[in-house]
């Protein structure tokens, strides 16, 4: 080894790089010597929480990962399920901490990263969805984060020609210093051409495709993603990557051409921890070694050190394993797309990652020690003694009458229309979008016609931190069921889910308790639906000086429907239809939007309705939508029945008259996500649906809700305008 490689950075440097002393000792033991600078940099990243899942891996084993329709599961760049002979690939990932530091580039590169995960399977990305969390928009910082993150998502997704078809945004004070940016990508591939990431074939070449390697994002995974945020975040700005969607567009088209021409052995994107992570994962999956020569890596800055090249998180780069005879053909396609394609190494026997600078070896690590030997920690879960989250400010008096309350909820930041956001996204490019945002509870994308049928896929992304805070297990189970309810509303059957677990510091017992129970809830949801988790991401240490974020497991679900001609929307179809509620709906104000607006902390017991009853209702809705008897369907979620009805009216411009047994806060504004639906259609057909309780009829220009004791009416135009304009002031 050379002079520079011989320099031993030592234990203190390891701790600066966010490893623990004990972890450093373990590295020394595994290597039989102290690591040099390059090696230590590589360990510090691959042994970070972000890459190694060291606090979550053990509990994640609880999640079901097998399914009848599963083509590719956990461990690959993204998961995939089979639909109509196609592989539908999908995955959600977080980019929280970079976005809290620099929201535009943080969010943009979050989109870029998840796109590359799907591209790495050889799939064409066909849809993006986002799940965003911010503090209340009354805060200037939250408005800035919202505005810039949305602009960043749009900038990247729009420029690359992938439609953003859905998403959700929630505001809560707990996200004030730690916003969440979760992005989900869905892609379509030929199942016979699905790429894997395992490097195989001793002597095969390692090609780096795409952008130049620079100093951006060095240490992003360990410094940003695996520690708590604090006051000196501006200093971390250089660790945020800068996105170039044009470069990614060329990477996308070139990679799909390469896959189409069958020129690749394996493909992997460069994400967190850059070349280190991609190369070692490919080597580990293929049970081979890799020689990488950093001197051949095309650089943006000439004087980069080997460790910087190995850990740079420069965007828009892919790593491909190619048989030597096919290298020229690969180079030719890359040249057509004006992309760099550089042979930087070779697949070797013996299972070592050897890093060269020209002839000189600057690092030599057994691959398994990087990827498999990171210590996994047991959590010490313990429920908090008292509520973790302070009560939010009171915005709505308990004494407000129902009509005032309804309008206040519709205008509120958590329920108001997201139009000012989703209008900034291209929702339609690629010409598959059957249901755009706000038209239905799930996005619907048509596939190729099959005879006179237009099969389609549907997708939804959802999460409710308040409910998970109140009851991590039930709240998370309900989150899964709500996603399935969204799919049922467009007639779709769930096939699989991806999750992003956004939590605080897992080394704190109460956060560990939230995490363990949330995973249990998701697992129970999967078991009830008989679907697997196909992949996902964990984002921990989401805490600021004021404490942890609400525990926020985000679920992205994909399903199929036989015919896109029959996928109901939210809006009533026409006047004179019956309106009914379906499902074992037991509304509660615990952790509801109304409770938050009234200044109540998210705590209390959630309704514990049996999942089988909920799924039976979802089946009834799905069947009704598919058969055409249900002509509008909307699941009752944030804001309860009254808000749901207002949305059905607003989306169609058609009023309705509703008769309820009582007009209590629970009946009007109580929530029980996933378990109740508002549907409409011809009276006889609706009455015939098992479990449907007809509560009124469509018609007129107002939403009228009454009981024996009285009632209230609000003009549909006022409902619609109130909801439409709620978020506008924050995104002028």
């Amino acid at each position, binding site marked *: 080894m050379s002079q520079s490689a011989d320099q031993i950075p030592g234990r203190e440097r390891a701790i600066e790089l966010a490893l623990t002393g004990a972890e450093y000792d373990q590295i020394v033991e595994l290597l039989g010597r102290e690591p040099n600078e390059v090696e230590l940099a590589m360990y510090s990243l691959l042994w970070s929480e972000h890459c190694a899942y060291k606090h979550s891996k053990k509990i994640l084993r609880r999640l079901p990962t097998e399914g009848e329709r599963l083509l590719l599961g956990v461990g690959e760049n993204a998961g995939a399920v089979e639909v109509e002979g196609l592989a539908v690939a999908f995955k959600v990932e977080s980019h929280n901490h970079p976005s809290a530091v620099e929201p535009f580039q943080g969010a943009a590169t979050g989109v870029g990263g998840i796109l590359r995960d799907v591209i790495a399977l050889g799939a064409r990305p066909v849809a993006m969805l986002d799940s965003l969390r911010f503090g209340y928009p009354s805060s200037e910082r939250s408005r800035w984060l919202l505005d810039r993150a949305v*602009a960043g998502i*749009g*900038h990247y997704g*729009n*420029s*690359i*020609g992938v439609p953003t078809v859905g998403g959700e945004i929630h505001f809560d004070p707990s996200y004030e210093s730690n916003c969440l940016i979760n992005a989900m990508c869905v892609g379509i591939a030929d199942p016979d051409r699905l790429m894997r990431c395992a490097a195989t074939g001793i002597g095969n070449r390692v090609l780096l495709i795409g952008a130049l390697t620079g100093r951006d994002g060095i240490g992003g995974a360990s410094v940003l993603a695996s520690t708590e945020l604090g006051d000196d975040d501006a200093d971390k700005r250089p660790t945020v990557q800068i996105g*170039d*969607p*044009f*470069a990614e*567009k*060329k990477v996308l*088209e070139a990679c799909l051409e390469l896959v189409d021409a069958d020129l690749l052995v394996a493909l992997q994107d460069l994400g967190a921890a850059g070349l280190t992570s991609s190369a070692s994962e490919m080597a580990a999956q293929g049970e081979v070694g890799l020689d990488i020569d950093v001197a051949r890596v095309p650089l943006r800055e000439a004087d980069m050190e080997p460790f910087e090249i190995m850990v740079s998180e420069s965007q828009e780069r892919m790593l491909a394993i190619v048989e030597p005879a096919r290298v020229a053909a690969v180079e030719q396609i890359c040249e057509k*797309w*004006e992309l760099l394609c550089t042979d930087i190494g070779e697949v070797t026997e013996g299972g070592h990652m050897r890093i060269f600078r020209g002839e000189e070896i600057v690092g030599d690590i057994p691959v398994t020690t990087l990827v498999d030997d990171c210590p996994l920690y047991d959590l010490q879960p313990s429920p908090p003694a008292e509520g973790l989250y302070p009560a939010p400010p009171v915005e709505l008096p308990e004494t407000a009458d129902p009509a005032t309350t309804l309008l206040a909820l519709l205008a509120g930041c958590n329920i108001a229309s997201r139009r000012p956001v*989703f*209008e*900034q*996204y*291209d*929702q*339609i*490019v*690629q*010409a*598959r*979008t*059957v249901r*755009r945002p706000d038209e239905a509870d799930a996005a619907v994308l*048509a596939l190729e016609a099959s005879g006179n049928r*237009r099969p389609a896929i549907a997708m939804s992304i959802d999460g409710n931190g308040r409910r998970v805070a109140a009851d991590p297990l039930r709240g998370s189970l309900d989150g899964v069921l709500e996603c399935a309810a969204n799919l049922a509303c467009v007639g779709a059957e769930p096939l699989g889910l991806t999750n992003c677990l956004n939590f605080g510091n897992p080394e704190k017992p109460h956060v560990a308790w939230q995490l363990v129970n949330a995973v249990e809830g998701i697992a129970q949801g999967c078991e009830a639906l008989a679907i697997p988790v196909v992949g996902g991401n964990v984002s921990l240490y989401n805490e600021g000086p004021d404490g942890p974020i609400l525990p926020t497991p985000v679920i992205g679900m994909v399903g199929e429907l036989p015919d*896109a*001609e029959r996928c109901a929307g939210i809006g009533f179809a026409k006047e004179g239809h019956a309106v009914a509620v379906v499902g074992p709906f037991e509304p509660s104000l615990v952790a509801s939007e109304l409770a938050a607006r009234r200044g109540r902390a998210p705590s209390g017991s959630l309704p514990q309705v049996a999942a089988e009853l909920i799924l039976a209702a979802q089946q009834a809705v799905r069947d009704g939508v598919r058969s055409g008897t249900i002509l509008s369907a909307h699941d009752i979620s944030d804001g309860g029945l009254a808000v749901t009805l207002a949305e059905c009216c607003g989306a169609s411009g058609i009023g309705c008259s509703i008769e309820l047994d009582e007009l209590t806060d629970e009946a009007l504004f109580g929530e029980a996500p996933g378990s109740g639906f508002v549907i409409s259609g011809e009276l006889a057909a609706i009455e015939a649906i098992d479990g449907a309780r007809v509560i009124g009829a469509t018609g007129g220009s107002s939403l009228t809700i009454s009981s024996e004791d009285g009632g209230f009416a609000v003009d549909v135009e006022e409902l619609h305008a109130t909801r439409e304009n709620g978020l506008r002031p924050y995104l002028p």
Partner: protein
Amino acid sequence: MRIGVVRFPGSCDEADAIAAASAVAEAELLWHGRTDLDGVDAVVVPGGFSYGDYLRPGAIARYSPVMTAVAAFAADGGPVLGICNGFQVLCEAGLLPGALLPNNSLRFICRQVDLTVERTTTPWTAACEAGEQLSIPSKHANGRWYADDQTLAQIEANGQVVFRYAPGQNPNGSLADIAGVCSEQGNVVGLMPHPEHAVDLLTGSADGLKLFASVLEEGSSVPVS
């Protein structure tokens, strides 16, 4: 009838333009690096972000080799349609009047809009009725059509305004609600909204098909003035 759809690095809507054109004719992609048009009868310059829209939308793409061939084809009276980024490219290339500035909101806006057909004597609007309204999605960040007073007066007088946003629906602050214009000869048409995304009722509207049907109706028989 064969319609060629230009593909630049960074084009995004070229596959959708091919699909729309295929509904009425044969369609093929024309790689930006080629210097001929493979003998096609009509050319579509599609939407997207050619060269990342770096510098200015269309400013780099106009120098692509294929654009020389497109300009010659246009000069010969060949039908050329520029959609969104394609419109920007054609303006940058001087084949259409005016320029496309950032939307007055400074934001990307994706919205279904109604367009009024102002001129039907172009190869891309021959199948429309004068004054007809078409429901077409619009999605762009730089779509505010602008020209100096003299140019505006001239193209209004020449009848070179092909599409206007319906009253109250101008999404970007375009002058005189102009959504699309044509060359003096009428054979080159550009518009910001996306007719290729309005060819299937299932995805929202089929009104955009009329533009593609028009070129079939006219075929290559557009008179060269």
